[in-house]
């Protein structure tokens, strides 16, 4: 097989295990959106235009609280700000690709396509750019259709899920499960703890705007701790 074809297939197989997470996550969005009285067209439009699950949950919750649009946008965009880091990290690998290709890639830049691609390019530094592109789109190939289809499935199931299933808590558990494995250093831990502590202390601020302050201070604390620990290591 052609090397780019092989790269594409490797992307597909590496992405497959993530479907176990993506399918229920997307279904949950469909279910919660249907419970919030969005119709099927609105639910699908939401997933197509935004295509970033975590921020969709955040925006949906705030919409239900009738929060001001600016607050909703700021909060949901803060959730997606991590993707700027993904964009930074992939730029050196694809800088030479045509801008049209990069424009398409940008839409499909999600947690999985970023994390798997970077790991793959680390493992196989000799890959050509065509192979790297093939791998990236290979990862995306099974995830995107399954994300959309599962959203629709969840939306159709809609209100069939009774409250005993405590679905209100599926989003907190999923978010915590996504973040806990990212805590690799003391700096990550401090960023999380500071941000959580502050958001609880700032709970009196309207529509969860305390989150924006808490997240900014949390990020700065993480960065500071990184500088300190780096310095200590350099001095030792």
């Amino acid at each position, binding site marked *: 097989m052609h090397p780019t074809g092989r790269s594409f297939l490797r992307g597909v197989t590496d992405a497959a295990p993530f479907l176990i*997470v993506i399918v229920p996550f997307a279904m949950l969005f469909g279910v919660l959106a249907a419970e919030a*009285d*969005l119709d099927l067209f609105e639910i699908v*439009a939401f997933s197509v*235009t*935004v*295509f970033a699950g*975590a921020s969709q949950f*955040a*925006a949906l919750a705030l*919409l239900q609280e009738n929060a001001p*649009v600016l607050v*909703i*946008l700021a909060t*949901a*965009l803060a*959730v*997606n*700000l*991590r*993707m*700027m*880091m*993904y*964009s*930074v990290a*992939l*730029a*050196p690998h*694809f*800088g030479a690709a045509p801008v049209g290709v*990069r424009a398409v890639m*940008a*839409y499909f*830049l999600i947690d999985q396509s970023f994390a798997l691609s970077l790991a793959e390019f680390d493992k196989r530094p000799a890959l050509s750019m065509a192979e790297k592109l093939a791998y990236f789109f290979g990862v995306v190939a099974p995830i995107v259709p399954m994300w959309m289809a599962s959203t629709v499935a969840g939306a159709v199931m809609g209100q069939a899920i009774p409250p005993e299933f*405590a679905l*209100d*808590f599926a989003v*907190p*558990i*999923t*978010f*915590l*499960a996504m*973040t*806990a*494995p990212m805590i690799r250093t003391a700096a990550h831990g401090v*960023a*999380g703890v500071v*941000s*959580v502590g502050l*958001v*609880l202390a700032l709970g009196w601020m309207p529509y*969860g705007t305390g*989150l924006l302050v808490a*997240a900014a201070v*949390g*990020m700065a604390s*993480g*960065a500071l701790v990184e500088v300190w620990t780096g310095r200590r290591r350099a001095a030792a």
Partner: protein
Amino acid sequence: MIDRADLWIVMVLLGLGTYVIRFSFLGLLGNRPLPEWLVRSLRYTAVAVMPALVAPAVLWPAATGGQMDPARLAAAGATVLVGYVTRSMMAAIFAGGVVLYGLLWALGG
């Protein structure tokens, strides 16, 4: 009831804003060097934003009328602990789900 105008404004602007974030460096700024403080801070966006987003719902769940709920607290604790130790998102979700349903069943009947 969600206001329809708000819904569509949020959808379109959030979609555009998210796209701009994704396209930013990949599409426009390429290999230009970034200020170090920016790169350093961006490393901590996920750990700062995601847990803080759900922390109030963990401590004061709407489903219990804002009353602290031992089942939900324990489930959140188990999720974080298992996720941290195993580095596996799936294991963490599974642990959180088992503790949540187990305790809801044991405590609530």
